[in-house]
């Protein structure tokens, strides 16, 4: 009888910690969702960029690279060779960003489905976040793979896939989500610390993403048609100058 009472009654400190963990998990899930939203906006910008000026931009970078290589060959200077490598990296990274953006083409989604998509995403992040499973490496690897699938689907606004993933998770088809009432005080403290760290990391990542000009153009009311027209004109002029 006494034993039964002990297992059923949770220590007040444990209960308090668990409440803190759950609150912080909600916050982290919100931040994950916010970060994914920022990434979506940035990728959306690059998708538009590719459509409007992608070929021109690639051509300009290729010409810059060619000129930088010529110069490096003529002078033999270390700094010029580095500049040529820099242009190569810029060209490669621009191509990569554009290719990534194309690979994550969003699905047309009714505006009314947006809140439900966000809710499902947060629910999945709370249950499957890899930080929750640090004690079990296998489970953590499964959770990481799951999060990648989830983020990919969320950024494409792929509602059916997000719903299926969440359903699989809650049904235990992917992996069993451990019951958090069985955790010890030490484990809960460590978990809380990991969540706090993750919260700070996410806040920093979001600050970085929102500072990106691509994000700013997409969210600060910039007239994108005018913006891309202006960019097209500037790039055309620059290209003509370089080819002279």
């Amino acid at each position, binding site marked *: 009888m006494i034993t039964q009472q002990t297992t059923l009654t949770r220590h007040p400190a444990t209960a308090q910690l668990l409440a803190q963990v759950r609150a912080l998990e909600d916050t982290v899930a919100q931040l994950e969702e916010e970060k994914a939203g920022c990434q979506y906006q940035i990728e959306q910008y690059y998708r538009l960029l590719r459509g409007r000026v992608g070929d021109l931009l690639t051509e300009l970078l290729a010409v810059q690279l060619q000129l930088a290589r010529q110069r490096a060959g003529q002078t*033999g200077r270390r*700094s010029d060779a*580095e500049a040529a490598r*820099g242009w190569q990296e810029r060209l490669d990274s621009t191509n990569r960003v554009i290719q990534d953006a194309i690979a994550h083409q969003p699905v047309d989604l009714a505006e009314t489905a947006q809140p439900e998509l966000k809710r499902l995403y947060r629910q999945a992040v709370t249950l499957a976040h890899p930080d929750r499973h640090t004690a079990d490496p296998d489970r953590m690897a499964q959770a990481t793979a799951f999060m990648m699938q989830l983020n990919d689907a969320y950024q494409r606004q792929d509602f059916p896939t997000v719903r299926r993933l969440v359903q699989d998770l809650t049904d235990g088809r992917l992996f069993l989500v451990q019951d958090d009432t069985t955790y010890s005080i030490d484990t809960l403290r460590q978990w809380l610390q990991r969540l706090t760290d993750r919260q700070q990391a996410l806040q920093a990542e979001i600050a970085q993403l929102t500072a990106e000009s691509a994000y700013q153009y997409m969210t600060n009311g910039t007239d994108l048609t005018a913006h891309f027209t202006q960019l097209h004109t500037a790039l055309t002029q620059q290209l003509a100058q370089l080819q002279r």
Partner: protein
Amino acid sequence: MPDQAPVRSSALPVSDWQQALDTVLQTPVKARPYSAQIMRQSPTAFLFLIDQSGSMDERTTYRGRVLSKAAAVAQIVNQTLLELALRCQKGDEVRHYYDIALIGYGGLNDEQAVSLWSGAAVGKFFLTPAELAGATLRVDEVTVERNIRGRAVTVTEKRPVWLNAVHNYRTPMKSAICLAESLVGQWLATQQGNDVYPPTVINITDGVATDATADELLACCDRLKALRSMDGNVLLMNIHVSDERGNSILFPARADDLGTDQYARLLYDMSSEMPTPYHADIASLFGLDQRTSYVGMCSNADMDALVKFMNIGTPTQHNHSFTANLSSEP
């Protein structure tokens, strides 16, 4: 081809040392360069190129005193030379672990770099550590406070002076680099293909060359850096000392670290990439992040940076990589 006629500093006729140098340059660099032991049988060489142009009279601060850049540089170089000599002292013997050249440019004229050794060594280019004692301009006596067993004691110390504070004329830096090229070439030839630690050239300047365009200067530096022993290429380190108003750039990893400063970019291209064994000392002495490459240059450096720079380029207590290579023979 060098822009000036080879300087006779060795006993070998010019055609012989040129042939010997060609042989040295045909020997491939070994798999683990900059690892040769510095011993009496296989010494290394240090060449100090000192800008003595008119602008070196500008004021700077060193050890809390305001003095000319020329005076501060002279103090630091004299101290380095003394330390180099002391590192070779084993009992009463001063061992021949390296040859040392001290070259000035601008102090005597607008065109030509010259050897600065005086006394019995006038006209010589390389001195052994033992010969340094006979090549001083004078020996100063300075009163300093030392902490001995917890008590402050005033003592008089002797400070040999090889380099005077001189600041005249313009900046014939190309002449100094070409002279270094010629001297290093001859020095390598006399080593007869031995596995010797490559010579180190440290150029201390406060301005741009007045005897060459940037491209001409770079061509000289490239020729100098192409010289090598089987232990690796000659190291050319350049430091631009300033009046402490600009941003210091120390051992950069990439030209992008230098911003748009064209002079800093020139120094960057002139200087050697520092070999891996130096990296830990550079990071530790200058408080830099561990990187995969460091170029041996400092731009807008103050005098404290110059002291550290000299510590990286020469075997001092602070330089663990050099100290490890220096012979521990009894």
